[in-house]
């Protein structure tokens, strides 16, 4: 395998960790929204923390191997699709991080309610359905999808 093939394989593997990990986190969050008891919601939200190292590895890998490939493949320094992808990458991470903080608050609340009798709570339901958190997560998802479109389409190259 050539250097470019190795880099492409590692770049795509990182993208799978990033996007696949985000899909897994989204599924776990969606299941927590439908959980009957706080202990169940807490268990699902705790699992998201277990998936985070995979997402972080994917986030770092897409950037490092992507920039390396940019150099290796000899793409122009002014390639707009790459710069737009980098901006979207930063936006996706910022929104994902902010949304994650709100999720963390919901997890702490779920853990507390689970320890205090494990009864369904409108407060937990509201925290899990916080519109700001949901919009940030959707925004991160849309930005990630846009990066995937640009990586495959590569307009202008």
């Amino acid at each position, binding site marked *: *395998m050539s250097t470019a*093939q*190795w880099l*492409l*394989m590692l*770049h*795509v*593997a990182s*993208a*799978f960790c990033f*996007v*696949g*990990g*985000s*899909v*897994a986190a*989204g*599924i*776990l969050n969606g*299941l927590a929204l439908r959980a009957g008891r706080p202990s*169940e919601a807490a*268990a*699902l939200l*705790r*699992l998201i923390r*277990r*998936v985070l190292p*995979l997402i972080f590895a994917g986030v770092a890998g*897409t*950037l490092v191997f*992507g*920039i390396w*490939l*940019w150099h290796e*493949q000899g*793409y122009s320094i002014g390639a707009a699709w*790459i710069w737009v*992808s*980098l901006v979207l*990458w930063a936006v996706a991470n910022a929104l994902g991080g902010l949304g994650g903080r709100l999720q963390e608050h919901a997890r702490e609340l779920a853990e507390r309610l689970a320890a205090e009798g494990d009864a369904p709570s409108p407060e937990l339901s509201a925290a899990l359905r916080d519109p700001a958190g949901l919009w940030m997560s959707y925004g991160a998802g849309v930005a990630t*999808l846009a*990066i*995937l*479109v640009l*990586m*495959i*389409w*590569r307009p202008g*190259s």
Partner: protein
Amino acid sequence: MTLLAASRPFWPLFVHVLGTMTLFGAVLAAFATALARLPRATFASLLVALPAWVVALGAGHWLEHDEGLGGASPTWLQLGRNVLEPGVLVLLLALAAAWWWRSSGKAVAARATAALSGIYLLLLTVAMLAMSGKWS
């Protein structure tokens, strides 16, 4: 960040990649919930994996057709086909084991679900590496 492939049809490749990434994420969620002993969540995650598999397979065939790869069988393509086509049996067995676990609560069903989900996740990882690295 860079290209996934040069001079390839956009839509089939985009849908195929998106389908496989969703499949990977859903199986990952199933594996994590199975290890955490959450039967309902494991079953639900595996249910998400099924339509993702259909999308990945359909777009894969669309891509093969558009690129004229129907008769070709390099290692990377053969590996991808094997994991996606006969490999779905592992996914279906995991789904059946998760259903059994959810309805019976038996520990053996929990272990079978976790093992099958883990094996399918490993198969998907190998196929993804082979296809992106174009193993020959």
